């Protein structure tokens, strides 16, 4: 059968994931030190795992409310108020999802009409452009630059806005660059959103993992923004719970209601075991989270120092657990560099182009791996570039 003719046209316009290609290359090799992951190396803190086990022992294996367990939504509401300083009603303004990825998809599908434009920064998380396309929207990426520490310049956003623009999508701290947003830039972006009557989808999954001076600022806290922001957050990164697949959206009730309409038919609800684990994470997970964060910071400092020392320019990222060094001086594309590094030194790092065309000349190296491995990886990278 010609399956190509059976598949939706829309899907054919979504390119194959660059990450997936690279993954298959790495898979075939033993003894690879991987800086290519996008998740923590710590197992989920034991108290959180134990809460999940206990709930299974007690036979808590049913569906929950479509929105998520009320107890969890209350915990989320309390946590979000304390951490982000913005208040959402647990009953109507919080939706528990299967990871932030689902929440992002729901938000786009709830907001976009065919042909609507979504402006966001690139390099960015791999799902942004495909998710917009699959929601029948048009992705309009705005490149961010190393010179500006990969923050988003409001002037660039302004230049990208057209009469078709409907949504601005943000992710600070950013996967893959570790870039953070300054409050000033956020204010500029907020002004544009208000001026053009746009909704902002703000994916703040890495917000706890901020190492730069000052507190993380959510755009939802800026004047006039709560009513037009969908704040997305989850448990994967800060609490090391990627496999639990749990995220949430906070937004005004009509927006949550619209997202819920899709969620209830597509997903019904997030898994109850994960929801119970998440309650434990919010109630009793802070200490473990802070100790993981301290370790990430230690590793970040080490990796940034080593890369710069060996002559690979690398800014010190303000958040997340990635560094995004500039390898353009070696006269290879990101893909060529990553392939050769893998073949010759068994170190896997993801080509910057997996996160958008403007990632050319960069590599994403994740430092969520043990210190010993990072030390060896840095030695191998140094040996590799010395031969170039």
């Amino acid at each position: 059968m010609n399956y190509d003719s059976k598949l939706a046209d829309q899907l054919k316009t979504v390119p194959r994931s660059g990450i997936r290609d690279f993954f298959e290359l790495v898979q075939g090799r033993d003894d690879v030190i991987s800086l290519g992951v996008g998740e923590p190396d710590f197992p989920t803190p034991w108290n959180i795992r134990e809460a999940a086990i206990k709930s299974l022992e007690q036979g808590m294996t049913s569906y929950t409310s479509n929105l998520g367990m009320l107890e969890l939504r209350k915990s989320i509401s309390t946590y979000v108020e304390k951490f982000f300083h913005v208040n959402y009603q647990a009953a109507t303004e919080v939706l528990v999802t299967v990871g932030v990825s689902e929440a992002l998809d729901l938000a786009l599908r709830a907001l976009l009409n065919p042909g609507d434009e979504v402006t966001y920064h690139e390099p960015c998380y791999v799902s942004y452009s495909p998710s917009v396309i699959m929601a029948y929207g048009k992705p309009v990426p705005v490149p961010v630059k190393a010179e500006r520490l990969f923050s988003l310049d409001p002037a660039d956003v302004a230049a990208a806005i057209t009469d078709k623009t409907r949504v601005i999508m943000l992710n600070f701290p950013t996967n893959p660059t570790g870039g953070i947003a300054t409050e000033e830039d956020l204010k500029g972006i907020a002004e544009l959103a208000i001026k053009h009557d746009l909704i902002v989808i703000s994916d703040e999954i890495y917000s706890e993992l901020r190492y730069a001076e000052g507190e993380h600022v959510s755009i939802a806290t800026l004047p006039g923004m709560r009513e037009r922001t969908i704040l997305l957050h989850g448990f994967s990164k800060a609490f090391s719970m990627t496999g639990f697949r749990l995220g949430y959206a906070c937004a005004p009730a009509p927006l949550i209601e619209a997202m819920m309409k899709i969620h209830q038919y597509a997903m019904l609800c997030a898994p109850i075991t994960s929801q119970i684990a998440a309650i434990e994470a919010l109630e009793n997970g802070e200490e473990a989270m802070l100790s993981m964060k301290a370790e990430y910071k230690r590793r970040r400092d080490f990796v940034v120092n080593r890369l710069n020392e060996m002559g690979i320019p690398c800014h010190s990222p303000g958040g997340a657990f990635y560094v995004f060094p500039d390898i353009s001086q070696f006269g290879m594309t990101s893909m060529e560099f990553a392939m050769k590094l893998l073949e010759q030194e068994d170190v896997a790092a993801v080509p910057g182009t997996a996160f958008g065309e403007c990632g050319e000349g960069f590599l994403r190296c994740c430092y969520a791996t043990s210190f010993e491995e990072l030390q060896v990886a840095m030695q191998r990278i140094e040996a590799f570039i010395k031969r170039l």
Partner: protein
Amino acid sequence: MSQDALLDLIRNEARLSHADIAARLGISEEAAAARLAALEADGVIMGYQAVVNQEEVLDENVSALIEVKVTPEKGGGFDKMARRIAKFDQVSTCYLMSGGYDLMVVVTGKNLREVAGFVSAKLSSMEGVLSTATHFRLKTYKESGFTYVGDSDSGRLSVSP
């Protein structure tokens, strides 16, 4: 960098080289060596030991946790008795406790008879020791922070978004 940061590191990984410590704490190798030497000289770090998986060791060492009740002495309280007991080579750990007994003493020996012999011949017969209760260790699940059944090697994918 606080003294605590260095201690935290060394507590978990005593065998780190000065260069490793320096890299992790973002200080120079010389500073790491100097601080470590100072901690040793001040007796803050008393020694370095390996944590051995008892279940894997072939020699059949046994150890027992002994609750000891003693008569407190004038002036010295429990200190004198505790220090005398702690001096024995057979005693690996000795704590003063709150609650139903006074000292918790961990005794290790080659076999049951050796430990029992030490308790009856040396410990119980000491002047001031009122009573002892001996609990032999049967199996170890966690030792000095190391769980015997730990987390499996992470099933993390080597590349993920």
